[in-house]
């Protein structure tokens, strides 16, 4: 008997093979489906401070050197040890890609592009695509624990925890928003028992099926009815796992998000998770803050990588780290840097061609054309690497196929 996961593995490998590695000497094909964690560095990071070391563009004296980790050059400093520390520990399973041409300097548009490959934001992002392909029957296949995530037509498989973990108030309402007799809307409350909830859901499903038999027979209408029924199932499944979602409170820190993400993946609640590193990277004023910010970011990434290793999940998980844009080469009058439409990104984890760097940014952080299979900027089929190919590439790295949603060849060079 073939297991579900084995079946998925074989079908996914076929999908990936159709996109990467065909007709070349390099076989850039994901060997199996992998879970996907996206870490979105919100605000626009200055890559010159870390993964695209350009000391002359940092304009602050707090760096020591450019250090090589495998083939990856990184700007390191004793004042920001976490950056070098991450690559020291995990550089062998990390790959950096330069020259991603986002073609916009708008937070909104760039964010959409780097998540979905498309500017409209109506398509699903990487996490949603992969989760839909491999784990549609999970309680919440795509879990958005940070601020950002795009679900497009895959909304039914996705869900948010809320900026302050409000999902907990839906999973266990009595513990979170108590009722007070002084309220004009006070009541004793009603919480359905298991059998009552089952009866309620049976009634709702029967009603939905009646709807399907009339207006809901075809196309988009039928999809809405199906989404309604599926959401009931998933909602109940989530409530059965309420204990894993922490508690309601203040804004989730990067560490909180990592913890929740790992639990959701480990417990098969979700296949993909979106995390947002909301640390204040939009440094129009005082760009020197990027050093400390990136030190915090890479500290969080080390924590994530260490936890994936400790839980035995690293080989089954891909982590994609990206920002919506980078920052201008030059400082502005406020000693900050403004938005720049070319950026770099990083992947690490299972299936990654570790210790490698691909593509390139020119001296003024302009995107160099690149061969999608080898990552070379000098030889091969040199093409512009845009956000569509970045998204397609990450999906392929996770063993998936983005082609139903993104019409672009995937960037495959970081697949090991």
């Amino acid at each position, binding site marked *: 008997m073939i297991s579900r996961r084995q079946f998925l593995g074989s079908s996914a490998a076929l999908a990936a093979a159709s996109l990467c590695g065909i007709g070349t000497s390099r076989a850039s094909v994901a060997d199996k489906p992998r879970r996907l964690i996206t870490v979105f560095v919100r605000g626009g990071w200055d890559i010159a401070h870390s993964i695209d070391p350009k000391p002359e563009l940092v304009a602050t004296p707090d760096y020591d050197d450019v250090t090589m980790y495998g083939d990856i050059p990184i700007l390191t400093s004793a004042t920001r040890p976490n950056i070098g520390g991450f690559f020291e520990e995990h550089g062998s399973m990390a790959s950096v890609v330069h020259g991603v041409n986002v073609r916009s300097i708008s937070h909104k548009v760039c964010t959409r592009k780097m998540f979905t490959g498309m500017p409209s934001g109506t398509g699903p992002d990487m996490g949603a695509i992969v989760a839909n392909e491999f784990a549609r029957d999970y309680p919440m296949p795509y879990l958005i624990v940070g601020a950002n995530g795009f679900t497009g037509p895959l909304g039914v498989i996705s869900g948010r925890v809320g900026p302050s973990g409000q999902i907990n108030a839906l999973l266990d309402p009595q513990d979170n928003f108590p009722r*007070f007799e002084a309220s004009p*809307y006070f009541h004793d409350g*009603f919480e359905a028992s298991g059998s009552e909830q089952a009866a309620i859901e049976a009634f709702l499903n029967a009603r939905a099926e009646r*709807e399907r038999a009339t*207006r809901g027979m075809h196309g988009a209408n039928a999809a809405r009815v199906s989404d*309604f029924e599926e959401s009931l199932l*998933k909602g109940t499944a989530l409530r059965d796992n309420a204990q894993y979602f922490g508690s309601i409170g203040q804004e989730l820190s990067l560490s909180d998000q990592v913890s929740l993400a790992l639990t959701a993946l480990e417990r098969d609640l979700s296949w993909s998770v979106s995390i947002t590193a909301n640390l204040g990277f939009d440094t129009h004023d005082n760009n020197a803050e990027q050093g400390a910010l990136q030190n915090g970011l890479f500290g969080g990434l080390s924590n994530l990588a260490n936890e994936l290793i400790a839980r035995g999940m690293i080989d089954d998980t891909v982590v994609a780290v990206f920002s919506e844009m980078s920052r201008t080469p030059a400082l502005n009058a406020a000693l900050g840097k403004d938005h720049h439409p070319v950026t770099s990104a990083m992947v690490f984890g299972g299936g990654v061609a570790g210790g490698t760097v691909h593509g390139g940014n020119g001296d003024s952080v302009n995107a160099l054309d690149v061969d999608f299979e080898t990552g070379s900027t000098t030889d091969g089929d040199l093409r512009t690497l845009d956000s569509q190919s970045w998204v397609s590439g990450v999906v392929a790295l996770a063993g998936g196929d983005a082609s139903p949603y993104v019409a672009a060849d995937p960037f495959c060079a970081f697949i090991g």
Partner: protein
Amino acid sequence: MTRTHGLGWCMATLLVACGGNEDAAGSDADTDTGFTTGADTDAVDETSASTTAGETEAEDESGDETGETEPEVELEVLSPPEHLIRISMALRGTRPSTEDLAAIEADPDRMPEFVDAYMQGDGFAEVVRDLHNDALLTRVEGALPNYAPLEDVRPQRIADSVTATALKLAELVVLDDRPYTELVTGDTWMVDDVVAAVYGITDGGSGWREVPIPGDRPAAGILSDNAFYLRHESAGANFHRGRANAVSTAFLCFDYEDNNIELDDNIDLTDAEAVAMALTTNPACQACHETLDPLASHFFPLPGNVMNNDIPSYPVPDLYRPANADDWQQTTGRAPGYFGQETSDIGELGQAIAEDPRFTACAARRFYAYFLQRRLDEVDGDTVDALEATFQDSGLQARALIRAIMLSDDFRVAGAASAEGADEVQGYLRARPFQLALLLEDLTGFRWEIDPTLIDPGQGEGIIDLSRSAAVGFAVLGGGGDSFTVIESAHTMNATTSLFIRQLASEAASYVVEHDLREGEGALLTLGDAVDEASVREQLASLFFRLYGEAVESNGPDVDDAYALFAALHGASGDHERAWKATLAALLQDFSITFY
């Protein structure tokens, strides 16, 4: 399902050309049905099985630019009562009264009369604010200091009021039937007691009210209002370009950010002077900056960060500083201007926008997109043209525009008659969280609120509505937005929206059962403690009509299912109150509650 009102849900069909969606990403709202404005609605023969292709305007426009004919899709439309329910939900978030449903069934020609009647009241006002927030994105939850005289008010409540002013102004323009151009030319502010205290307005009024714009600020409607600039801050070195694009996007439906940026390798991006020079000389840069920068130059009198944490006390000093108006000379070097037209300040900017044909076309596009739950770019040009003509004919009264949409064939689409082309026909509209809150309050009298003073008296006065709050409550998890990280509402269901509706329904059911059965107030339940089958069935049939607008027989199959649910629950617990709570919780989270 037994539907005895009207002629049933499939009594009429339309044939329209259905444009394909070329977005490979797909969408959950990809309907393109063509458009027939309100006056033509009655041309659809309610008694016929279908209309001919020539009966819709879209048929005449079915060829695309390549000369190819798009496939026709046969559509089914709502019956008059169903249409009335959709109109009522869209305009005010509630169901029509049983009397209205009976009246429209007897005389479908009264539909325009009901549309006008529903464009009144608090529910419609909230819809108008929500519609405009999709454009302005000013409804952002935050906190402002509770300095004197607001020391007894929660900081979040202060921010709620201060950020609400622009949307309240839009509400005033629409509900007062003022020319829609007052949105950008009006000479008043909207304030409540909190806003008045923050800005030092001493008009002696109370509640939300209209006051003259204070200080030297030119009259420019929302462009004179601090809420717009509070939301759309300007990074110091970007010289208000972000604000300029926010204005262009909101009022002209022209988003500079839709343009791809191709870096010119000949520009030394490490040289700030070279970059600045390129903005005025390089064609690739000029394409946007030629018009964007002059737009931005109108905003130099306003600080980039309107209200930061450095506020020392209330009232805050006037944020509009005409002395800074010429700062563009030291920055971009481009004088204020409107797409080649000379303008000097935000007053003239507002006037120029009001006179721009794109302003009215954008309004038509936005209103249609909002009510039909489409993206702006999914609204075809013919639809915009037809709506804009109606809008112009009315003297730019927004309610006339809304009326045309409500009475259009597009707004009556129930679904596709067959599988062919059905993927692009969206026959269900999804209630946003605030609409569900309005609906359940209307049906049960319940509001899902928390009063923080009951938890911690030190926080100051201020109720939090859990269905409407994104920061504390469930607006985002329920499928709405927060105007910042989530700026588009969901059009379908997922696990968290299901849980939100489940909990909201359970709370409302519990509340109304206790009130109706214990106190005999009878808002929804009128049978008292009777549990005999006949009484329960009659009650359920009554609920189907009130909740869903479905006139069903008490011994019909719908009531069979509902009665079986009640009987099973009652049999298990022996508690008729609990059985009604569970039954009502089920009825209130039904598909017909979530979608309309």
